[in-house]
């Protein structure tokens, strides 16, 4: 899973497969971080509150 | 800020969630995960065998009579593996499944670890450990007591064989003690030895030079199923499979056994009719003049008709077989097509070095004397005696030049008592002992006298004798049953007192020549490990019992201990035995004019017995006498035969856990024996593959599973032999059915020994 695992080899299969994996994880991770951060920011800006319904 | 419940709740929830997520950024959960997996890789309840220096120690396997040399691999002082000893003339590095699982006996729960005294009901399995002094003292006291009461003859001794020092120490004990009731497990080899005694005037064991034979004609012998020395026989059989070897095996057997399957030719025959076929072959060979003329005309007698001193005409062997056993008649008896009878005879006669073998299955049943004589006559006709690839004579391994036993009056008198089994009496004049009748005799209310004591060494009569129920009932009638051996087998389980022996990995002992082996070969067991438990070399036990009894009995055992006895008995041979693990000697290969010890120094085709037992002279002219098992054809339409193979140990040692594991589900299913039945017959009786059924014979009834096997004839059921133990441990006890419990005694009309394990049977779906 990591280059320091002994199974790891710098071959096509690893690069493609693990590449895809880390890419997906990256997107999800980044996405979540962004959402949480932005929400925190919005809250501090006093957005949100008790209004009903969504935008 | 105002902290109302809602906000509080949300903060709480937030904190919880945050904490959960946050902890992922600490090493804690990760370390825990790792530790857990490491724990799962080192579960304390999964053994981790200790390392240590690896050494190999030689000994001789004693788990069957095969006498294989083995090499035990040790780690420090633990035995971890048993392998065949390279270069040993018997098995040269090979080993059988029983032999290689020997450590499960050495270390296993079936070992008897200390002298035991019965604490519960007989056979209940409740024991009280006692010291050796107590145990030996009790045996000596009980036996001396009987002797004082002039009841020495009511104490019997049962051993597994007549050869080797330890067996003979027990036999000697019986003699000087003064009981005629000695029993020696009876095998086909003994019957063949009787045939040799009558036909060649010398009680000798047959030695078959199979390695150099090119045509092996086996009358039902389980050549690769444990007949003789298993590994040696498998090697002989493998020669046949060697590309371009001119060698062949012809198997005459009712069932497609492994041997039959591997043989060059399988001759399917009706159970128990082998003798007829042998004589049929003789017929063809004589009629077509294919026999060895030199041997027959010069070195044999009673081949032609003859006249005795009172001018009575007697049929010679020639006329007898020509008249009584034409292929047509043989076909009727055996079911072997006449053409095939003739063909077989011609092949046998045409072969360079043919030899005919006797003894069905593993040879554990005595068989008939005429059967053995017929087969030997076949060998004789072709002059196969003392010829390369033929049959030789070996004296029994009992030449120890021990001092003559000191016999006091008591012993001499009681020795003259009739044996309880009637052997040697007018009823069974040709038998020296009839162990197979033990069950019947003990169960007989009109028996001449009851047995008060029974001393068993290594044998397992409770399991191996026919009519198991009677045997067990009989054993429980005996006041004092002593078992001497290393494993808690069925007889041990029925005993009052158990005197544990070392295993062959813990003791010094001689191992007699393997049955049928081509040369005299005495093996040596050696302590590979120090005795693990409070056990005693059985020979030592015998000596100590004798000494404890004092008087003439003790005097007949002059040795300080067994080791001294062994050394003196083996004499010069011991050096070889210690160096190579065995001592060997070629059999007497002398020419025909020196070969025979009969009065006329000739081979006798129709020996006559001169004995008070026979008012008019008895002539043993080999013939076929039909064996008729009990039961009506209508009530019991099927024939039950046992089948044997190397995965089924059926003698005094039972299957180890490994061996039981190798049993296919066509032999054992859960706790039930599986019977083989021809598919057509099976369907006719409403059975289905794998289904449960009730198998009954006049002797008993048992629940079995069904396996459709086209290798058995129609209207025949085959039951694995070696299951149905009451002794041993949970890995063997109670699994399957003991064939002996289902077959009645089927005596040889001539000798009275059990001729075969055949019974009439009935089977219905359960």
């Amino acid at each position, binding site marked *: *899973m990591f280059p320091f*695992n002994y*199974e790891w080899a710098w071959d096509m*299969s*690893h690069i493609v*497969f*693990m590449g*895809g*994996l880390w890419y*997906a*994880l990256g*997107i*999800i991770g980044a*996405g*979540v971080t*962004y*959402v*949480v951060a*932005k*929400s*925190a920011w*919005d*809250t501090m800006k006093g*957005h*949100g*509150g*008790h209004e*009903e319904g*969504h*935008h | 800020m105002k*902290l109302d*419940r*809602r*906000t*509080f*709740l*949300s*903060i*709480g929830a937030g904190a919880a969630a945050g904490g959960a997520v946050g902890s992922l950024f600490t090493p804690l959960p990760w370390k825990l*995960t790792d530790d*857990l*997996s490491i*724990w*799962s*890789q080192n579960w304390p309840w999964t053994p981790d065998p200790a390392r240590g220096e690896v050494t190999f120690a030689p000994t001789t396997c004693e788990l069957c009579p095969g006498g294989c040399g083995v090499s035990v691999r040790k780690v420090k002082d633990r035995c971890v593996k048993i392998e065949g000893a390279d270069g040993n003339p018997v098995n040269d590095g090979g080993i059988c499944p029983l032999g290689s699982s020997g450590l499960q006996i050495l270390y296993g729960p079936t070992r008897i670890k200390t002298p035991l005294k019965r604490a519960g009901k007989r056979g209940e399995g409740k024991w009280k450990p006692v010291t050796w002094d107590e145990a030996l003292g009790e045996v000596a006291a009980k036996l001396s007591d009987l002797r004082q009461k002039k009841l020495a003859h009511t104490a019997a001794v049962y051993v597994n064989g007549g050869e080797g020092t330890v067996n003979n120490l027990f036999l000697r004990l019986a003699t000087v003690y003064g009981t005629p009731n000695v029993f020696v497990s009876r095998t086909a080899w003994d019957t063949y030895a009787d045939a040799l005694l009558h036909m060649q005037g010398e009680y000798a064991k047959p030695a078959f030079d199979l390695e150099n034979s090119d045509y092996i004609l086996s009358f039902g012998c389980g050549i690769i199923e444990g007949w003789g020395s298993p590994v040696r026989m498998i090697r002989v059989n493998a020669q046949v499979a060697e590309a371009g070897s001119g060698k062949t095996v012809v198997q005459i057997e009712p069932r497609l056994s492994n041997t039959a399957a591997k043989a060059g030719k399988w001759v399917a025959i009706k159970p128990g009719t082998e003798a007829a076929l042998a004589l049929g072959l003789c017929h063809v060979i004589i009629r077509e003049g294919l026999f060895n003329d030199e041997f027959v005309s010069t070195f044999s007698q009673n081949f032609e008709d003859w006249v005795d001193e009172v001018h009575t005409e007697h049929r010679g062997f020639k006329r007898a077989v020509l008249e009584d056993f034409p292929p047509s008649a043989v076909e009727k008896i055996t079911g072997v097509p006449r053409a095939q009878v003739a063909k077989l005879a011609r092949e046998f006669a045409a072969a360079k070095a043919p030899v005919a073998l006797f003894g069905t299955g593993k040879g554990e049943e005595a068989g008939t004397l005429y059967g053995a004589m017929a087969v030997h006559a076949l060998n004789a006709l072709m002059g196969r005696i003392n010829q390369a690839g033929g049959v030789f004579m070996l004296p029994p391994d009992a030449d120890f030049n021990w001092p003559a036993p000191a016999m006091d009056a008591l012993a001499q008198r009681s020795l003259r008592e009739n044996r309880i089994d009637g052997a040697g009496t007018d009823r069974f004049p040709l038998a020296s002992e009839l162990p197979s009748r033990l069950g019947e005799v003990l169960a007989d209310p009109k028996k001449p006298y009851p047995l008060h004591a029974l001393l068993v060494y290594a044998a397992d009569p409770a399991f191996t004798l026919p009519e198991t129920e009677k045997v067990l009932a009989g054993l429980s009638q005996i006041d004092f049953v002593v078992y001497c051996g290393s494993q808690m087998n069925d007889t041990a389980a029925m005993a009052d007192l158990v005197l544990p022996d070392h295993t062959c990995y813990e003791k010094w002992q001689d191992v007699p020549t393997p049955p049928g082996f081509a040369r005299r070969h005495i093996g040596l067991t050696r302590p590979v490990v120090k005795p693990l438990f409070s056990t005693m070399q059985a020979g030592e036990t015998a000596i100590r019992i004798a000494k404890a009894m004092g008087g003439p009995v003790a005097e007949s055992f002059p040795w300080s201990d067994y080791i001294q006895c062994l050394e003196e008995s083996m004499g010069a041979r011991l050096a070889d035995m210690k160096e190579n693990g065995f001592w060997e000697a070629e059999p007497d290969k002398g020419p025909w004019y020196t070969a025979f010890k009969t009065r006329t120094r000739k081979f006798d085709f129709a020996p006559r017995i001169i004995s008070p037992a026979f008012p008019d002279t008895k002539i043993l002219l080999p013939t076929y006498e039909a064996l008729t098992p009990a039961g009506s054809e209508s009530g019991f339409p099927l024939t039950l035969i046992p089948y044997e193979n190397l995965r089924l140990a059926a003698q005094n040692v039972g299957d180890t856990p490994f061996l039981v594991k190798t049993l296919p589900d066509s032999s054992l299913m859960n706790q039930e024996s599986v019977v083989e039945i021809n598919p057509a017959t099976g369907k006719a009786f409403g059975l289905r593959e794998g289904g449960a059924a009730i198998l009954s014979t006049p002797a008993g009834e048992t629940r079995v599973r069904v396996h459709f096997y086209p290798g058995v004839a129609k209207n025949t059921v085959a039951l694995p032999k070696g299951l149905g133990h009451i002794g041993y441990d949970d890995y063997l006890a109670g699994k399957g059915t003991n064939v002996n419990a289902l077959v009645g005694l089927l005596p040889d009309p001539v000798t009275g020994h059990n001729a075969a394990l055949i019974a009439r049977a009935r089977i219905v779906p359960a």
Partner: protein
Amino acid sequence: MEIAAKSAMDKINALFDSLTPKKLLELDAMLQPKGVKRAPFWQWGLWMGFFTLVALWGFYAAILCWFKGLNQTNMNDYYGFALWIWADLAVIALGGGAFFTGFLKYVIGKEMPLKYIVNYAVIIGFICYSSALLILGMDVGQPLRGWFIFWHANVHSMLTEVAFCLSCYFGVLCIEYLPNVLENRQLDKIPFIHNLTHNFHSAMGIFAATGAFLSFFHQGSLGGVAGVMFGRPFAFREGVFIWPTTFFLFTWSAAAFGPCFTIMLTKLIEAITRKKLVPDTAVRFLAKISGWMIGTYIVAKIADTLYWAFVTAPAAGWHLSDFYTGNAFYGYWILALEIVAGGIIPAGILISKKGRETGWSLTLAVILGVIGVSVNRWVMVLQVMAVPIMEFDQWALYVPSWQEVATTILPVAYGVLLISASHRYLPLFPYEIEQANAAEHHG
């Protein structure tokens, strides 16, 4: 800080002091979405109680398997894969409605009318995938080392691909489900959570796209698991690059039949709650898509089966009859059940406008579809194990132990519980809320 903590303590005490049945009912009402009708608490409680018991039974069986080992099952050396793996493949295929709906809504951009059903599709997916992971956790002989599949990954193994994509996509499902949870009336009042929900919604496209990408792969690799077993002529399929045809067939069938399951459960919950929760437009739209997907899938499936039966298998010396005769259970009927009853017929119904707009035929179609894909997964797991390969080998049949059955029912109970709770406390069905609010405005 101390003050906060102290008052927190007081509040906790206060809460527990005041937690009377009456307060409990208040709390229950407070948590429900505004304006909607919900079953009385006791009724709902009974319902939940029953399924909790079922779940506990399953959990007990799971404990047995974990502590006593897999000897608790009727699996054996011939059936290394059995009921559990089938259940895994089945629920994941059925849960495929989630990714496919998400894919359509966020990636293809079919905002209308799918927004009415996407929440439900997501929660079903969430249940299916969490169940799958739970079952996998029981199925492996050494659960404590399960993570080796990630740490010591063998990238050539289809199972590795499954594990990675499965767990990643489960993460995505959590993200997709989370906003719906946070939309709970009370939680939504917390500003941060409100914003979080909002932002999640706006970013959902990215997640859905990633999820779809992952799903294509793990659905496929689940098919690959069977397809690459070149030692098993019944399962083995040729393919393109490293992927056997089963790879694509599995993805396709999940996308095709997943919506069937979503629709089926929608109909079910509507029947139970006796309410219209999803507008027909949404259901019919999904049904139509599903119909065409099944139609195209089944053509491909038939083509694949024919090629396998007449080219691939014979090349290895097998005849079709070797796979479907000579045993007590597996016959040609199973082929018919999967392809005709479970494929052609539902496809036909769903493609025809009349078929999907008639209540009973729609229901029939989605049920048949669900059966069809389940049978396919069964065949690709259990029949693979049953077929003898060595000439002298035998057919191996298997009946699951009660422990296996119980642990397989566990996810169903758990699903019912989660859906019931979500439906009670979350705005799971926007349509229902809209209706309710509309009614309010009228009143």
